[in-house]
């Protein structure tokens, strides 16, 4: 019975979607930032699988349908960018300065804190690409001598965290301009942050999409330089 259910082609899909809908419902009822739907549905999913002793690979073999949609969805980030192209062109200075400043802060903060916690160079290299999109980050980590599986975990934790704290950060630091919000989300929390930015608005979504590309490329260029200081 259990085997038949968990080996269904739709088991992982329905579990993920149903828990996500439940998490969205919880969030709208209690309105707490900690009840971030992505965080809560992920935790519930892990709890469910662990409790019923279902291996991750069984879940993944049917949930991977969602993963499969991620590449076409990334391609479609071109749509908000195209609609806001004029705004992007008119604000090139702000866009590039902000993303560059953010990316440098990301690398420096990881480097400094890694040294403070006396982590090995391997672990520092693992976390350097934490703010960029998984597909680029894995390559950067490998090249720098990091542990790729942990990089992926770090990138996802960063994304969920960014998605969760964005609105509070914007309130505390009076970041009100939609362009600034989008850049901040995309530079700090890659595609998961961009999903949040798209919820906030089209300008936010477009700026965040651009940040994924620019921050990703900058990180590819800068990590080898930062990494050479480790030796």
């Amino acid at each position, binding site marked *: 019975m259990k085997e038949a259910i968990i080996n269904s082609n739709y088991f*992982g899909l329905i579990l993920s*979607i149903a828990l*996500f809908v439940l998490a969205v419902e919880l969030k709208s009822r209690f309105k707490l930032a900690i009840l971030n739907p*992505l965080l809560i549905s*992920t935790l519930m*999913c892990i709890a469910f699988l662990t409790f019923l002793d279902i291996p991750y*690979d069984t879940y*993944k073999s049917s*949930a991977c349908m*969602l*993963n499969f949609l*991620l*590449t*076409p*969805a*990334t*391609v*479609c*980030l*071109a*749509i908000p*960018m*195209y609609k806001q192209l004029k705004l992007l062109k008119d604000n090139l*200075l*702000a866009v590039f*300065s902000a993303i560059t*400043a*953010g*990316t440098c*802060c*990301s690398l420096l*903060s*990881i480097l400094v*804190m890694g040294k403070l916690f006396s*982590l090995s160079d391997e*672990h520092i290299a693992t*976390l350097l690409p*934490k703010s960029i*999109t998984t597909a*680029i980050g894995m390559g950067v980590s490998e*090249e720098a001598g990091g542990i790729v599986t*942990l990089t*992926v*975990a*770090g990138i*996802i*934790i960063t994304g969920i965290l*960014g998605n969760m*704290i964005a609105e509070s*950060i*914007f309130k505390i*630091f009076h*970041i009100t301009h939609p*362009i600034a*919000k989008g850049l901040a*989300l995309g530079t*700090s929390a890659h595609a998961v942050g961009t*999903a949040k930015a798209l919820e906030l608005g089209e300008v936010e979504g477009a700026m965040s999409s651009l*940040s994924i590309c620019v921050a990703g490329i900058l990180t*590819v260029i800068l990590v080898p330089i930062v990494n050479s200081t480790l030796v």
Partner: protein
Amino acid sequence: MKFVKEIVWIIAFTFIGEALNALLPLPVPAGVYGLILLLLSLVTGLVKLSDVEATGNFLLDTMTLMFIPAAVGIMSVTDVLLPVLIPYIIMIVISTIIVMTVTGLVASAILKHKESKNIKKEASV
């Protein structure tokens, strides 16, 4: 047929992105190649916005959901993650707050500066 045509365009760009990712030695993911090519095609008019918009918006609207399988995947690396979990979490939390704040504030400062210049320009005309 509207959706069929839209899906063809989006899958075509995804496929070309995958191919470029496999063929070119650059660390650029398939989705980013596809994004850049779709943007160029929209700008040059090869693809019209109405050719991809409805399906595109559906995919963007459901994007958050697509991260769940990868996020649940953390459970399969717990044995390597647990020993370093606390320093990792502290570093990620502090670093993400710094990056988000600095990026947002730098952008706000430049945008504000530009807007005040524009107002001055308008006032002097």
